[in-house]
């Protein structure tokens, strides 16, 4: 067989690989330059000062594994930028996660007693323990007990329509801001590509703080 034919073959394979790799890398950037007018309201779940120069909004799902991996990253950011950045948690429970909505309700029920982030932390830290349960409610109740919540109120709030509407309000707003995956982050209204590391995330915030 002609050597030329094989040379063309090998070249074609290399070109295809190079092409696919560059497309895959671009696909991973996924950020946008649109600035969404995300208004933070009184009953949003916020960590950090109201007059912060950087507002980081996260649309998240307590049952989403990727969200759980960002949980320590965001905690570290909250600690390091306590005075300059506020972090807003919004619910975006996905349909394929059967326990995600109930988890969101548990967090909101804890919020009415001022312990949203305490419940949020427990839900993420223990995610693998309740994700696949047929009925996660007893586990969520036990978290509420651990947090020292008033259990009667927790049960009543968790079942209230107002609280469910509160969660759906977040989902609806996320759809307006083109959330199509969890977690999705907005830095001062701009949808960002999910950072690959703490350092990358930090760099994005530092960039905002420059202005």
């Amino acid at each position, binding site marked *: *067989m*002609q050597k030329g*034919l*094989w040379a063309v*073959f090998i070249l074609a*394979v290399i070109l*295809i*690989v190079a092409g*696919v*790799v560059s*497309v*895959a*890398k671009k696909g*991973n950037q996924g950020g946008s330059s649109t600035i969404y007018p995300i208004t933070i309201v009184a009953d949003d779940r916020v960590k950090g000062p109201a007059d912060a120069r950087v507002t980081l909004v996260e649309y998240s*799902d307590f049952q*989403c*594994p*990727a*969200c759980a*991996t*960002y949980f320590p990253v965001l905690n570290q950011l909250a600690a390091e930028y306590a005075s300059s950045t506020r972090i807003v948690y919004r619910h975006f429970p*996905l*349909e*394929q*996660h059967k326990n995600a909505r109930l988890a969101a309700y548990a967090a909101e029920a804890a919020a009415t007693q001022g312990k949203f982030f305490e419940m949020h932390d427990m839900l993420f830290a223990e995610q693998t323990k309740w994700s696949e349960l047929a009925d996660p409610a007893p586990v969520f109740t036990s978290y509420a007990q651990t947090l020292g919540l008033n259990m009667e109120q927790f049960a009543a709030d968790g079942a209230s329509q107002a609280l469910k509407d509160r969660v759906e309000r977040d989902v609806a707003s996320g759809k307006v801001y083109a959330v*199509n*995956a*969890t*977690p*999705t982050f907005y830095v001062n209204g701009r949808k960002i590509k*999910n950072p*690959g590391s703490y350092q990358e995330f930090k760099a994005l915030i530092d960039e905002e703080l420059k202005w």
Partner: protein
Amino acid sequence: MKIPNWFFTLVAILALIGFVDATYLTTEHFLGVVPPCTITEGCEQVTTSPYSVVLGVPVALAGAIFYVGVLALLLWLWDRRDPKLLKLFARYTWLGFLASLYFTSVQAFVLNAWCQYCILSAIASTLIFLLAQYVAWRVPNLQESAAL
């Protein structure tokens, strides 16, 4: 002996689809960013599951190499038109077919989750397998009937 031209064209197209698909999954694997959970595709449970790596080799990479093998053998066969090579080619495609069968079952029965790129590859290698078996069985028959 005569191997029909449509066979070369179809297999080449399928193998190219499979190759691009597997290369894409391999790149995603090595970029290593935790894949987000999307509205349409789930959480990429499949491509991040323990089943996505066999003996340290990402399944996607093995798939890409398999398709390069298909394309190389096909080119060789196209050049030589040797019945022995056709047999070898038909045997080689068993690899892709059996792997597809196994990984599709893992998705259906173990993970209960689907990865659309994996399904695409399973379809491509199954079709390549069927075409290769058909032609390998048909072509010597044609030859015999011509000899009669």
